[in-house]
């Protein structure tokens, strides 16, 4: 086992989780310390990932059940940094609700571990294992504010529906195993031509499970409720991190074993993509709760990311990854703003609470303005480029219908983003919110806003980073 250093990040992370758990239990009042240690663990894991794996060629370990390549390393680093940022800006929120406990960082770490396993997986069993690990941690996180009935409801809802989808997914796995005789992606790929139609069933079931995890329409029903009920910092985590991992699995699963069945799954993906884009845009219009609105907007954004995957080319995959990265950035900014809407130890999450924000909090308002226009995909902000790359890849494959529907739904989506801007800028002001937000919250808002704003000066950098991804 000379290649063990390639899984060093995962090994390190799991050992740290166990250590932190024991440490936290035995040492009283250590939640602050555990939080800091968890942050350190995330950084170290990211550094290890960067040093050990990002330069290596594609390597498979443990009977080819784990794959380490550029895609997996990159996605792990994105996941880790996103988790880091979530953790760092959530402490104020947790303290306000008196749920600043050791379990929170540890659960986040465990779910990140699950995601890393998912990203690495080259085998259905490994993939499923990772998926369940991350989901279990997420169920608990959703109910983290257990004294609030909505939070408990969110967790339960998420658990029930997620378990159902996991069941479907597992059923798909078993079908595929039954018809190809293996759970390994490479073996499946070599066994493909035997019985195509039965395999298609398997793919469909697995896609259903995955679509559920990234909340693509028509498997999105849980998202608004869960996003609304969960603590805001957890919602932030939900909207970003699991999607990165699930998207990677989407890519890996469709392009490694089933690339030859592209005609079968491409239609499904196009449907998922179009449905998500349209539904996300239309359903968000009527929302009054910001977190629900974000849920629908994230459904829409997932649609765009899937459009890239549906194109069936390396360009498409790269564009999806760019999309999800920029989306993470925008969401981070958006949630930083949400976490700033606090007055007298209470957080406000109704859309009307944004009313006239520009008069009392001009800086917060202008950041939101930039982020919202970017989410709507208006140039020259980062969100435009994200969409631009995706549609470039899609149009390359002459999928004009997908492109035009997608772009038209950006117009619909622009409406509800504009509505937020209208409320922030055109409406009458309300009471002021608190302004002491702690350094990290301000930092993440400023940093994400600035990056979104000046992205157009260096659009080539991100392309260069993803251009090494070469799956097909």
């Amino acid at each position: 086992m000379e290649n063990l250093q390639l899984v060093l990040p995962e090994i390190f992370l799991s050992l740290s989780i166990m250590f932190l758990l024991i440490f936290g239990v035995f040492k009283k009042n250590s939640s602050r310390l555990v939080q800091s240690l968890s942050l350190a663990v995330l950084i170290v894991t990211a550094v290890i990932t960067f040093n050990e794996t990002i330069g290596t060629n594609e390597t498979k370990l443990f009977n080819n059940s784990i794959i380490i390549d550029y895609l997996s390393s990159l996605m792990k680093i994105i996941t880790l940094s996103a988790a880091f940022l979530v953790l760092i800006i959530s402490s104020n929120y947790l303290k306000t609700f008196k749920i600043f406990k050791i379990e929170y960082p540890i659960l986040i770490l465990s779910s990140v571990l699950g995601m890393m396993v998912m990203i690495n997986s080259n085998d259905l069993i490994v993939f499923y294992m990772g998926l369940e690990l991350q989901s279990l941690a997420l169920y608990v996180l959703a109910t983290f504010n257990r004294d609030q009935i909505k939070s408990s409801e969110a967790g339960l809802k998420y658990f029930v529906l997620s378990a159902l989808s996991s069941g479907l997914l597992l059923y798909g796995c078993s079908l595929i195993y039954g018809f190809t005789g293996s759970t390994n992606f490479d073996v499946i790929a070599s066994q493909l031509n035997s019985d195509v139609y039965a395999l298609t069933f398997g793919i469909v079931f697995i896609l259903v499970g995955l679509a559920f995890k990234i909340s693509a329409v028509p498997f999105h029903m849980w998202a608004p409720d869960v996003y609304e009920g969960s603590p805001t910092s957890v919602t932030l985590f939900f909207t970003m991190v699991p999607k990165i991992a699930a998207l990677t699995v989407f890519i890996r699963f469709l392009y490694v074993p089933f690339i030859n069945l592209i005609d079968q799954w491409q239609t499904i993906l196009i449907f998922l993509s179009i449905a998500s884009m349209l539904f996300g845009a239309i359903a968000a219009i009527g929302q009054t709760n910001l977190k629900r609105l974000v849920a629908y907007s994230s459904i829409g954004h997932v649609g765009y990311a899937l459009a890239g995957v549906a194109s069936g080319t390396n360009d498409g995959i790269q564009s999806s990854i760019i999309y999800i990265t920029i989306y993470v950035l925008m969401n981070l900014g958006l949630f930083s703003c949400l976490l700033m809407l606090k007055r007298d130890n209470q957080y406000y999450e109704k859309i009307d609470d944004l009313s006239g924000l520009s008069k009392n909090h001009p800086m917060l308002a202008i950041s939101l303005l930039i982020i919202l226009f970017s989410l709507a995909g208006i140039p020259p902000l980062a969100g435009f480029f994200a969409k631009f790359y995706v549609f470039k890849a899609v149009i390359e494959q002459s999928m004009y219908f997908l492109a035009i529907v997608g772009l038209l739904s950006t117009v619909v989506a622009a409406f509800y983003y504009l509505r937020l801007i209208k409320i922030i800028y055109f409406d009458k002001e309300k009471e002021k919110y608190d302004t002491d937000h702690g350094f990290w919250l301000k930092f993440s808002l400023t940093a994400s806003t600035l990056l979104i704003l000046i992205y157009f000066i260096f659009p080539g950098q991100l392309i260069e980073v993803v251009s090494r991804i070469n799956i097909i």
Partner: protein
Amino acid sequence: MNFPILSWLILLPSIGALFLFFTRGNKKNNFTIKYVALFTSAVNFFLSIYLWISFDASTSNFQFVEERIWIEDFINYKVGVDGISILFILLTTFITPLCIISVNNSIKERLSEFLIAVLIMESFMIGVFCSLDLVIFYLFFEAGLIPMFLIIGIWGGARRVYSAFKFFLYTLLGSVLMLVAIITIYWLNGTTDVVELYNSGIDIKYQNLLWLAFFSSFAVKTPMWPVHTWLPDAHVEAPTAGSVLLAAILLKMAGYGFIRFSLGLFPAASEIFTPLIYTLSVIAIIFTSFIALMQEDMKKLIAYSSVAHMGYVTLGIFTIQQQGIEGSIIQMISHGLVSAALFLCVGVVYDRMHSRLINTYGGIVSIIPKYSILFMLFTLAALGLPGTSGFVGEFLILMGAFKDNFLVAVIASLGVIIGAAYMLWLYKRVVFGKLVNTDLKQMFDLNRSELFILSCLAVPTLFFGFYPDPLINTIEVSISDLIDQYNFKLASQI
């Protein structure tokens, strides 16, 4: 010539805006803020004058070209001007300082934000007119929506929210199809560089659809009948400076786009769709002129007259005659000056009486004589009286149209009469007649800044009316070359 003058033209206003952003704050600052903004835009204006002076009008090649790699192997940041675009840049840099001076009287709150929006707007608009890459063009074209949306929405009138949304969504809807077309062009030709596309031409099979996609965007922006309905709303609700920017410059982006892209890239499709443009233009001229006749709101009336004037512009462009296109460009410049002035004129009385309704006024000629004289001048320029720049444009367009299609030209000429009718009637009702409304007696005449702005606009209106040569000399070669290219491509089927 190493000094990247075009990039500086684009950047300077943004730098000014950035500066304003950091000096935002209390009321005491307002004075400084305004002078910073004014200074920036004035410097930009002189820079563009310098650009015009050192511009070589004897060639149709792009000049002052700058090219930098922006996204490796994909898009280059490329800007440059030729005879067609340089006048629009001048118009932009000329109108913006005037807008900034005009805020004295109309914008009462959040002044620095307003000026930031105006300056950023200027950056984007100059970018539109000098970008030589389709993606860069699209970027600037769309980005202009953000500041304009805010200008209408924050500082607008009673129905500002509705108007701002309508403006934004209409334009966005039109533009997304253009984005599809741009990406498609990239996949067909492997480049979005306008100069290379001019040389290589675009596959004739795709031209019709691509033309339509570009058309959908430009038609909304022009605005052409029947997608013009956002314009009256946006104009009515926008603050004076916003209306001026909108009428004087934003509408010109589409006319410019028609010449640069529709004619330049898709000659075969342009030939096919010329009847469509003719029909829509003629409808715009006649129909919206009649609508303008019926308006009771001054701003709305001028907004509809803008639609009619832009109808002449599109008509002139698609005659594909030297006179027609020259006329269109001069008409756009002239409309930029005249409609800006008319909106400012409305702004002047609105600031005093807080009413835009025509029947509030009447008989003000003896109360505010200076105003009445200048208003008269611009009214006459708007209806195209010989000796004003409006005449030159309309005359050339109709000349081009007579060469190409007699019937269309005759109908369009009739539009001139209706145009005269609504403008003169407006003037008569506002300025002459009996003084019924006694509140009007308290009105005071133009103050210094208003007088200055309106005179600034009056001088070129008259000057180019009598002596349009400087304009025509600048655009002549570029246009004749464009038409040669057009006919050549048409003949050789590319």
